[in-house]
């Protein structure tokens, strides 16, 4: 029942590159079609090697030791920061703060900046496209501060309605939180335009959820123009447990700390404490140096491919998938046209529940996601309880799309739809 996988595949025109061979989980299971990279990505061997190498040659508590091993651990951690900052276009390296991932990064902003700057009667704008991680922290902040949460609605094809956004902005708006790329629909949002709108119509800060853009698009924080940008390592070929928040120096320096404890202090008196400088002020406790090193290796892997090529690889898979899926009767694709999306396609088919579809596809080695994609506000607006979602990354190829289509046909058969 599995689609055959050709020995040699191409990476967007580059000659005969078998990317899949770099990813042990995929290489060990040729029949597996992993189409859930928007949830988490697979890891190349180089990332796993880097983590192991850190533990085998450089493991010590960074920042805290006067001995050579600890100095080495500190350097590994700092080099990882530099490398990841460069990858994301952050010139001022101290402004990249390591967190567990996007969720923690956004909670950090909502708690540290938010609690300090949002008060009764203020307004916070989020969008109907947000992942819960960029929706619930703002909603809860609004409840705590008796501020008003306003939701920017969507056009019928799942893009942000910029007129609606303009209408929501005013002098009371403190924060506008939006994602760069939607994990549920793949929509790529026009960040520059949004930032411009915000600047023209309010004094709000912009908080950009980059969980789905850092892995898939060339990103330069310094040119994006947003005040904060959050990302997760595990979605961009890196390990779990590491990600980051990027901010502007003046903003970060003016913010109170988030978590408190070791490494982030300067002087601890019985009554008062003073804080360490950036980035340490926001990194309480023993840092996750090993996974930072792993993420650094992931970023090297992506840089070697080139983010432009990553993007066009996904584009070409996407347009093929779109064409094939549109041929299927009763299949409905959500979101903007393929060109306005990153490598994500969200759909439903007839009365086959997405969960059933996922189970049937799984029986054929095809991994897709079914559910609300941590975007219940969006699901309500699409008026579906769930969708099926396939998402692509550097290791996917046409065989994965063939398997997806074959699997869907199988589901049609099981649910008694005549062959189209």
């Amino acid at each position, binding site marked *: 029942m599995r689609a055959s996988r050709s020995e040699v595949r191409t990476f967007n025109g580059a000659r005969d590159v078998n990317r899949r061979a770099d990813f042990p989980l995929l290489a060990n299971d040729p029949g*597996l079609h992993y189409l859930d990279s928007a949830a988490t990505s697979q890891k190349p061997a180089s990332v796993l090697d880097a983590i192991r190498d850190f533990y085998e040659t450089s493991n010590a508590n960074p920042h805290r030791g006067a001995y050579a091993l600890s100095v080495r651990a500190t350097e590994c951690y700092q080099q990882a920061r530099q490398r990841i900052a460069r990858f994301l276009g952050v010139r001022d390296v101290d402004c990249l703060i390591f967190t567990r991932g996007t969720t923690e990064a956004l909670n950090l902003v909502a708690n540290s900046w938010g609690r300090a700057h949002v008060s009764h009667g203020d307004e916070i704008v989020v969008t109907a496209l947000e992942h819960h991680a960029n929706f619930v922290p703002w909603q809860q902040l609004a409840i705590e501060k008796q501020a008003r949460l306003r939701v920017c609605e969507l056009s019928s094809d799942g893009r942000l309605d910029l007129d609606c956004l303009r209408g929501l902005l005013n002098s009371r708006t403190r924060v506008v939180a939006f994602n760069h790329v939607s994990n549920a629909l793949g929509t790529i949002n026009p960040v520059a335009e949004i930032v411009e709108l915000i600047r023209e119509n309010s004094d709000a800060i912009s908080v950009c959820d980059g969980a789905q853009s850092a892995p898939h698009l060339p990103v330069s924080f310094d040119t994006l123009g947003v005040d904060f940008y959050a990302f997760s390592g595990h979605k961009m070929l890196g390990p779990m447990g590491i990600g980051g928040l990027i901010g502007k120096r003046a903003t970060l320096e003016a913010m109170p700390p988030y978590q408190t404890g070791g490494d982030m202090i300067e002087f601890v008196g019985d009554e008062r404490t003073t804080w360490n400088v950036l980035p340490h002020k926001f990194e309480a406790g023993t840092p996750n140096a090993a996974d930072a090193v792993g993420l650094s290796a992931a970023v090297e892997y992506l840089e070697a491919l080139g983010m432009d090529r990553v993007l066009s690889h996904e584009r070409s898979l996407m347009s093929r998938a779109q064409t094939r899926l549109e041929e299927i009767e009763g299949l409905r694709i959500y979101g903007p046209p393929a060109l306005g999306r990153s490598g994500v396609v969200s759909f439903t088919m007839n009365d086959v529940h*997405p969960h*059933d579809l996922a*189970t049937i596809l*799984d029986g054929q080695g095809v991994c897709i996601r079914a559910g609300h994609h941590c975007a219940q506000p969006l*699901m309500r607006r699409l008026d579906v309880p769930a969708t099926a979602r396939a998402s692509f990354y550097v290791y996917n190829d046409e065989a994965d799309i063939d398997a997806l289509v074959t699997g869907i046909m*199988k589901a049609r058969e*099981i649910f008694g739809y005549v062959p189209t």
Partner: protein
Amino acid sequence: MSRPESAAELSALYQDLILDHYRRPRNKGALENADTRVEMKNPLCGDEIALQVAFDGNTVSDLRFSGRGCSISQASASMMTQLVKGKEAEEIKAIGRRFRDLMLGDASAAGEKELGQLRALSGVARFPARVKCALLAWNALETALAERST
């Protein structure tokens, strides 16, 4: 990697009987004069059920469900309502326990007549991610019974 599912297992899962209950659910809708109403959600997939139960002493005299979800959760709810209507609380609980056994892969449960059509769901045990779907209605019913007895 070995995947537990095969074409045969998929067919066993999606039998005609299950698709029939999915597409023509029995006892779906609102129940007037219900004594208890319980709502349950599966946060993972968004499935939800609202169950309304009318009692006559310890007997479930009538029940209806509403909500939405996958074929497994809908079929399971539909079959359950058919099976338990008119039965006593203790008996229903015993059936529920056996159904749980079935979902956890206890093959002996598959032979038990008192599970009625629910036995058609035995294939779900091979799909751990779906067991929750099959149990959603039962969780709601057990909550309703527990509320009744306190």
